[in-house]
């Protein structure tokens, strides 16, 4: 049985529309105009135990709304969802003790107190046995190398350290399902890498189910085999990360290092689009299907010292998927 089962899930909001200007503001006192925003429009999804799924989409696509629905923060307008057999928006304590939600932009720890105090409170709220609590806390602080910061007020921690403490607080009760909403937002590369490495290690060791939203493709590439892309409230892709690159990364980048004096960038333009010309190095963008042909033509006509063929950056591929409206009016595609 799937850990997360979603069928036809919908959520619409009514949003007040205010026109510009003082007169419009006064008119708004008497008559308000509202617009209905359909944030989530009939999502179907099943996630098995132990999966690490990336939930991607442009801003306003409905990712966070879906996470809020699954964690019971908001009620849906239609459809059903079950997580670990519970209906999230019933907000039963038995469900709340089995999952956690971490939001990169929100702080759950007590700002003026050391994280150790917030952890102690979580122990009580989640009714964690003292031995288990101490073991889990020590394991997690050890893995994230923040043991020495436990007695420092949270407000005096760096953003990266705070995020690590937030993760520990969320994992103290050993949740079976973890929702991560942009956990690496605003972190520097080192902190991002540390959080990624921790999440990968933790998920592999515990086999918990994780749903992650992130705008950092490095997070996704490092952590998730399965990717679900949501756009305008609908799922437009559900499959592997490599499947996206095969499907949408229609072009490859050929990097060449020419022998001195061999072929100018202009000479090479006939093989593909010049992305970068920094003689003797040149980068070309070429359709994936003709890469072997182009390579053999270049090697036959020029002296090349070094060559490499790469997929386009993941960000670029994802941006293409985001702008894709779907086949047959947004039909979900699935390469599984």
């Amino acid at each position, binding site marked *: 049985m799937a850990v997360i089962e979603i069928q036809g899930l919908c959520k619409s*909001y009514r949003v007040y529309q205010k026109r510009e200007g003082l007169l419009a503001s006064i008119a708004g006192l008497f008559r308000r105009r509202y617009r209905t925003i359909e944030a989530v429009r009939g999502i179907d999804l099943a996630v098995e135990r132990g999966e690490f799924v990336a939930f991607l989409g442009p801003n306003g696509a409905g990712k966070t709304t879906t996470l*809020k629905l699954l964690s019971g923060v*908001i009620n849906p307008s239609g459809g059903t969802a079950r997580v670990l057999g519970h209906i999230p928006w019933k907000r039963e304590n038995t469900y709340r003790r089995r999952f956690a939600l971490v*939001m990169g932009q*929100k702080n759950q720890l*007590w700002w003026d*107190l050391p994280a150790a105090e917030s952890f102690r409170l979580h122990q*009580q709220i989640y009714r964690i046995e003292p031995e288990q609590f101490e073991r889990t806390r020590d394991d997690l602080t050890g893995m994230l190398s923040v043991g020495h910061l436990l007695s420092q007020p949270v407000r005096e921690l760096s953003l990266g350290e705070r995020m690590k403490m937030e993760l520990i607080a969320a994992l103290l009760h050993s949740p079976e399902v973890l929702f991560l909403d942009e956990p690496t937002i605003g972190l520097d590369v080192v902190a991002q890498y540390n959080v990624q490495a921790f999440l990968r290690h933790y998920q592999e060791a515990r086999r918990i189910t994780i749903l992650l939203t992130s705008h950092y493709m490095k997070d996704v590439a490092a952590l998730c085999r399965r990717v679900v892309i949501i756009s305008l409230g609908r799922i437009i892709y559900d499959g592997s990360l490599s499947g996206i690159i095969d499907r949408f990364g229609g072009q490859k980048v050929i990097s060449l290092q020419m022998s001195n004096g061999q072929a100018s960038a202009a000479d090479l333009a006939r093989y593909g689009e010049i992305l970068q010309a920094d003689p003797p190095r040149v980068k070309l963008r070429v359709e994936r299907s003709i890469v072997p042909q182009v390579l053999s033509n270049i090697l036959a006509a020029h002296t090349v010292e070094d060559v490499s063929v790469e997929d386009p950056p993941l960000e670029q591929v994802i941006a293409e998927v985001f702008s894709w409206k779907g086949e047959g009016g947004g039909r979900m595609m699935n390469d599984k």
Partner: protein
Amino acid sequence: MLARATTWLTILRISIEERLVYRGDFALGTLMRFLPIVTQIFLWGAVFEAIRASGSGADSVAGYSYHDFIAYYLLTMIGRAFSSMPGLASGIARDIRSGTVKKYLIQPIDMLGFLLLYRTAHKLVYYLVAAIPFALVFWLCQRFFPGWPDAITVAAFLASLVMSFLLGFFLEATIGMIGFWFLEISSLMFVYMLFSFFFSGHMFPLDMLPGVWGPLVRVLPFQYLAYFPAAVFLQKITGPELAWGLAVELGWVVLFILAARATFRLGVRQYSGFGG
């Protein structure tokens, strides 16, 4: 049951620790509370001086002598120390607007219970710190009091204070949770503060009110926030009237507990998770 009690104690302990972080602000806030009483002593001193100078021979206003007034204001200060909830309603509304309220929906914890313990911790720390200046002020002003009332009156006074704390908490929490619908409640809070200031007896003893105003304020819950405990201590309300007053106060407390619970349940249903 034991687990729940331990959770409550932990929340209380951590809230107390948090409250003790900002020592300077806390000490200043505590001392500032005594400023209004000083102005009241001078104001009523001047009023009675003027009455005496006019040669009318009256030594009281609406049944209150100069000493009665000062004793009354000192006692309402104690009442307010229990029933006032600075930042409670606005804090709840802010949490709703910013989305911080999510944590109460995600974690296995009751928001109202948590906030009540948090507020209790604040009050306990406040009483602990303010006990010495309060004792000093009352000792300096002891000549204004007729003397210690009997044990039953003191017990009734303490009960009315505890209930005024609960009434103040659930009343303001209910107002704060209106933020689930309106997001911005500062105007509503202003109106509430205004009503509370007049009708709680904070400004003047409510039994001074003429005409229909007296019976009117008696059917409102505000009098229990300041007037009622002071009147109990001064033995202006005694016997069956006292028992009835305490019963009505308890009724208001229960009513606002139910109102706060209902507002929370309906508000969460309406809540759409603002703030990302």
